[in-house]
């Protein structure tokens, strides 16, 4: 929506730490996301990516540090207020409402102006406008032909796209995608990654958590790498992936040790 003055970050994650009891899931992570970015947030399983995403969206409150959107601090705000300020999240586990059609699912997100308070929601009946938005967003992610069907009967590939369409219908300034490609076959993953890149090219800022490194390397302009809750890499994808510390995190410390001992960092083929 409002363009940020160039240079000022859209999303600012500042020394965010999340602890669950004795476990430090995210440990002092700092990074910025600028208007128009398509940033890949990657790392091995258990690195703290999803927890960090949850701290950004407000499902968990960071123990330390702060998150701000467009210069405005989000600390202490509940999820719905962060969404209302221009973020939206496409969740890893797709959770459509099963009793209503796919179009109605997306329309519910598109109605955010009318549902901002119960009173306004009570005074508004028509959903024609929202269904039009829903149709447009479903078209955008390539599942417009199933708009009138229930989500219950759809395969995962369609549901992942539905989840994306719903997140887009909120008209966010920043879109957070948590493993949108997980569970898809390589063809579906390739197609959806291309869609995500297109949506980014249309001007939407995106943060993407994804395990599918091939697609991440193909579409992301920048990577942030987490391991054990700490940020161990940040920058242009090829440069970051060439970093021995990042490789070690992905392949295990022993692999790096062994490779270093033999003096042959020949892991080139692995991430291609």
């Amino acid at each position: 929506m409002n363009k940020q003055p160039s240079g000022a970050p859209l999303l600012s994650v500042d020394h965010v730490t999340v602890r669950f009891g004795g476990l430090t899931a995210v440990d002092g992570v700092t990074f910025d996301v600028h208007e128009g970015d398509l940033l890949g947030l990657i790392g091995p399983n258990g690195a703290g990516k999803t927890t960090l995403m949850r701290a950004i969206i407000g499902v968990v409150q960071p123990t330390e540090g702060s998150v701000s959107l467009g210069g405005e601090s989000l600390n202490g705000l509940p999820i719905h207020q962060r969404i209302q300020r221009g973020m939206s999240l496409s969740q890893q586990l797709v959770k459509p409402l099963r009793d209503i059609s796919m179009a109605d699912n997306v329309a519910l997100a598109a109605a955010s102006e009318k549902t901002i308070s119960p009173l306004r929601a009570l005074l508004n009946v028509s959903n024609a406008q929202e269904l039009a938005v829903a149709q447009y967003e479903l078209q955008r992610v390539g599942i417009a032909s199933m708009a009138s069907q229930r989500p219950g009967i759809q395969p995962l590939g369609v549901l992942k796209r539905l989840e994306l369409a719903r997140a887009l219908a909120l008209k966010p300034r920043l879109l957070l995608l948590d493993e949108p490609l997980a569970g898809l076959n390589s063809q579906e993953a390739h197609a959806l990654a291309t869609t995500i890149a297109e949506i980014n090219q249309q001007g939407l800022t995106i943060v993407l958590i994804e395990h599918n490194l091939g697609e991440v390397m193909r579409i992301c302009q920048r990577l942030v790498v987490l391991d054990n809750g700490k940020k161990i890499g940040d920058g242009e994808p090829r440069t970051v992936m060439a970093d021995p510390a990042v490789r070690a995190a992905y392949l295990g410390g022993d692999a790096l040790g062994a490779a270093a001992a033999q003096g042959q960092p020949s892991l080139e083929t692995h991430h291609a």
Partner: protein
Amino acid sequence: MPAADPEVQTMNYEISLLTTMAIAVMFALSLNLITGFCGQISLGHATFQGVGAYTAAMLGKAGLPFLATLPMAMVLAGLLGVVVGLASLRVRADFLAITTMGVGFLFVGIVRQQEFLGGELGISSIPDHGLGRVGFMALALVMCIGVAALSMYIKRSWMGRVFNGIAEDEDTMRVLGIDVPRYKLAAFAMGTALAGMSGAFYTYHLNFIGAESFGFVESITVLSMVVFGGIGSVPGVIIAAALLSVLPAWFQVIGDYKLLVYGGLLFLMMRFSPNGMAGLAQHVASTKWFPTGGRS
């Protein structure tokens, strides 16, 4: 005086029955807003009818006309509803049932101990509403239709769509930017205020109220009406409430074993037809009873 009219006098039983039905339907529809539309199970809904009933009784005895006690009954019941709603926002969905049940026991316990609320004896000789039996019945029916119309309207509005979403998955609704607690509170406020209204009618219909009339059994009864009719289905709940409210009058046994009958009904519906009679009717309609092929 309509009561002097012999024709009306012979109709007294029917008039009374229709009034009872109208009050029960109002009450069941009020719970349907909370449990049916918004998915929040309440096991203490009779409390709010009780608050409305006692408010109307006290104000009526203090000299206020019936029509003035109605809004006050709604406001007080709604206020308590919001307080209980606020408290229950902090508990997980499945604990809400326990919390509301506790509120129900608390209400009965407190009212019984209060001298000014009539204590164990309840409040009797409530002044006449001055509308005549037929007029009172008509007003109850009009209000009942009003509540039904409001329910149908809410279901069609964006509020209804959001309620439906919260009932299915409130975490998803949060991620869609919905202020879930505020919507739950709105459902509580509306549902409990309308229960309060039914309570005021109850008071003036029976001319006597006691704390026991708004206890756990009544809460279960109204919940079984909503479940029997089909959670969320307005016509289903209307039919179920109308039917179940007059059954005890027709069959003495049901009156004697109220908790057993309604509890059993609740269990059977939950187990075999979670969508109630409305769901069952839909199922029957979509099943071909008479095979079109085969037989000629």
